[in-house]
């Protein structure tokens, strides 16, 4: 257990107690923790594991709640915070990668030609993030549903808990949001 774990739990408690400034301090800490976890997960991925954001968030959650009795029962809000940071982490990674492939310095040692798959995958994560920003302007709740479900890996029930709506609403939001995002990314928007 590191010092930062203790600090995160303290900040979480303060945030729960209504201290908004605590959230400002908490966010970068959570970003860092999840970023490290994502990198570790991606190294493991070399051995055939798949990075599951929800697993990373759970891991962090369990580690923090292990530290002290869980007196911040509102697990859902912690997950919501994590989902947002996860989105940033994954799109940052995709963007870094994407720009690397567009050609970095002039002197590069052997570049195998990168497989198309990898290239488009990064572009897709970036496209989803961009489309999600557009969706937030139209319908903020639906964009949050996608953030929690896709980037945070939350279930319909967990998402419903965070957003304080019924699971049915989340399921409907998710269905329409996906259709809207896919259409947005395919560049065939109508009447907007």
């Amino acid at each position, binding site marked *: 257990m590191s010092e930062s774990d203790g600090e995160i739990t303290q900040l979480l408690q303060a945030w729960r107690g209504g201290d908004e400034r605590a959230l400002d301090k908490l966010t970068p800490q959570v970003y860092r923790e999840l970023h490290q976890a*994502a*990198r*570790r*997960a*991606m*190294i493991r*991925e*070399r*051995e055939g594991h*798949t*990075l*599951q*954001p*929800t697993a990373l968030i759970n891991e962090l959650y369990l580690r923090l709640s292990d530290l002290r009795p869980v007196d911040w029962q509102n697990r859902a809000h912690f997950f919501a915070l994590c989902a947002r940071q996860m989105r940033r982490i*994954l799109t940052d*990674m*995709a963007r870094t*990668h994407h720009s*690397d*492939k567009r050609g970095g*310095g*002039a*002197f*590069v*040692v*052997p*570049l*195998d*030609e*990168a*497989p198309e*798959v*990898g290239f488009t*995958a*990064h572009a*897709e*994560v970036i496209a*989803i993030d961009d489309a999600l920003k557009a969706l937030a302007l*139209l*319908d903020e709740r639906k964009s949050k549903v*996608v953030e929690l479900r*896709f*980037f945070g*890996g939350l279930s319909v029930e967990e998402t419903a808990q965070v957003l304080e709506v019924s699971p049915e609403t989340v399921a*409907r939001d998710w*269905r*329409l949001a*996906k*259709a*809207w*995002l*896919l*259409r947005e*990314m*395919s560049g*065939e928007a*109508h*009447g*907007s």
Partner: protein
Amino acid sequence: MDRERWLKVETIFNRVIDADESHRKSLLNEFCLGDESLRLEVESLLAQANASGGLLDHPPGALLAESATVGLEQGARLGPYQIESLIGQGGMGMVYRALDTRLDRTVAIKTSSASFIHRFERETRAIAALNHPHICQLYDVGPDYLVMEYIEGTPLEGPLPLEEALQYADQICDALESAHLKGIVHRDLKPSNILLSIYGIKLLDFGLAQMKAGPEDTTGSDLTASGALMGTPRYMAPEQLNGTRADARSDIYSFGCLLHQVLTGKQAGPLTAVADLGPQGSPELRRILVKCLQEDPELRYQHASEVRADLLRLKRNTVSTPAATTPHSGARGVFARHWKLIVSAVALLIGSAVAGYFYYHFH
């Protein structure tokens, strides 16, 4: 779109998608009441909702699996090697510039996305035994990484003037000849595997395609278990694409594609016949290319040394006549392409001259 209209879209979308498939069209018309743009809006969303294979149904981590090996940061250690920076990435993994802390030597480290080395001891030994001025040297093998000579250079890309192209072709053939004699086939010869450094040509990744394919691959094909083709199809010989075992003559085919690319800047292959060699084309050059690019390996040059001899003869017969190249534009072209190398070479010369001056003055 305003809020009100969006709510309308949402309501109709949910009503229609929940309805029985046979009723959808009539429901849609009914709800839209002749508002054509509204109908189109909802219809396009329904089409997306019905299309399966959803991008958003898989965790984003799976999409980013490619970045799996981003794990190494500056200063990280891999055995005795200290990572300095990421310099490239490709199908197999990442390439880093690193420092061999024992020898204080800069090296290139290629990490692999799968730990393949244990299975390929014999191959890596053979590749490490390749010692040729135009082949990137393999220094060391780790559990899931390769340590290689660090080379500064740019990938060989055409179009280049004939004389320059022939000079590099000669070096490539020389390297191929030497490796083929040791029984090692490159199998993935293409521009990005050929660097132009201040020491001339350097062939990279010799024999690595073989390791990707696997030694226990009893069919001897270039196919992996998943059926994916190894190598870059447009530079690969037809027999490699067919899944027949690649041999030295497959490299000669790839060399033909490469020479065509270097001369013309355009791809060559079985479907794009050697046609547009431009002003520097001669019947002899065309004959050499055609012979490299024969579909049947039996009809190709059988050894790199034969290609080399023919190219050398061509060079003596054509390039020596001054009219064959325009020296000014040629020289400018070379400078434009390699100015960084030339500048560093000049800087090095000046540096040595200054050092020499001081040496003589103070000793």
